[in-house]
């Protein structure tokens, strides 16, 4: 990346921080989102309970989750 583009990007990021609140997202909600995602994926793709497994069967095959 050229120096010019890099300067442009830095300026860009500062602008976001000043004008758009979404740059204020803190680490905690990000960690929470990641954890929630892992839990949902565990249920839909990984959990071996047979009720879950049968219900999710076709979707697991289609998504190539290695579940059995």
């Amino acid at each position, binding site marked *: 990346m050229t120096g010019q583009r890099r300067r442009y990007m830095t300026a860009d990021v500062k602008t976001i921080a000043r004008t758009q609140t979404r740059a204020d*997202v*803190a680490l905690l909600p*990000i960690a929470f989102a990641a954890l*929630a*995602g892992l839990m949902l994926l565990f249920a839909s793709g990984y959990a071996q309970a047979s009720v879950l497994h049968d219900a999710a069967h*076709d979707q697991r095959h*289609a*998504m*190539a989750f290695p579940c059995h």
Partner: protein
Amino acid sequence: MTKNLLTSAVFAGVVAGPIAALLQFYFVIPTLLEGELFETGARIHFGADGSPQSDRGSPGMGGDFGRHLMTVGFNIVTYVGFGFLLLAAMALTEMKGFTRITARSGIIWGLAGFIAIQMAPAIGLPPVLPGTIGAEVEARQAWWLGTIVASSIGLWMIAFARGPIALAGVVLLAAPQFIGAPQLDTYWGVAPPELSAQFVSYSLAAAAVGWTCLGFFAAWFWTRES
């Protein structure tokens, strides 16, 4: 802000999940149900007479709507889960000042998610048609998870790191494939290879569309003016 990040992931998954399910119903599920004919022995490839021919034709979608409803439901759960992870990565990257997320760049994020979470593990462990037997499940799950983690970090480093660190991303992306997925030393598949190959390409294509939609909508919901 928490609400925005989390609700964006849920909305994006609720949009992308049914799109993926729709494509699965048209392409993937009929192939899967045809595979089950071979899994159960209702149809036999390489029959007792040694003939390599067997009838072609999917039983279609079938009438088991409860089963299909579950497929839609679990697609939504899965894509909401992917959405949480994708938005967490987007938010963290933006917070650290590496990039600015837009709906358009969300498409690229979605494609990267497809490569890291569907394509990379599928190189070693292709989507499995019913009636195919794989190596021990724990070993496959470990390789699958390790490949996803390494590929995600590797792609991120290629996208946002500079110099030798970006090169290390290439190594991370390639390493799981050279290590290799656990495989059996015999073939067990009872379905025709054509059907299995078709199932794999349909599955990956449906996932590619699902992920692309997920990336776009996750970024769109998240960055839209509130």
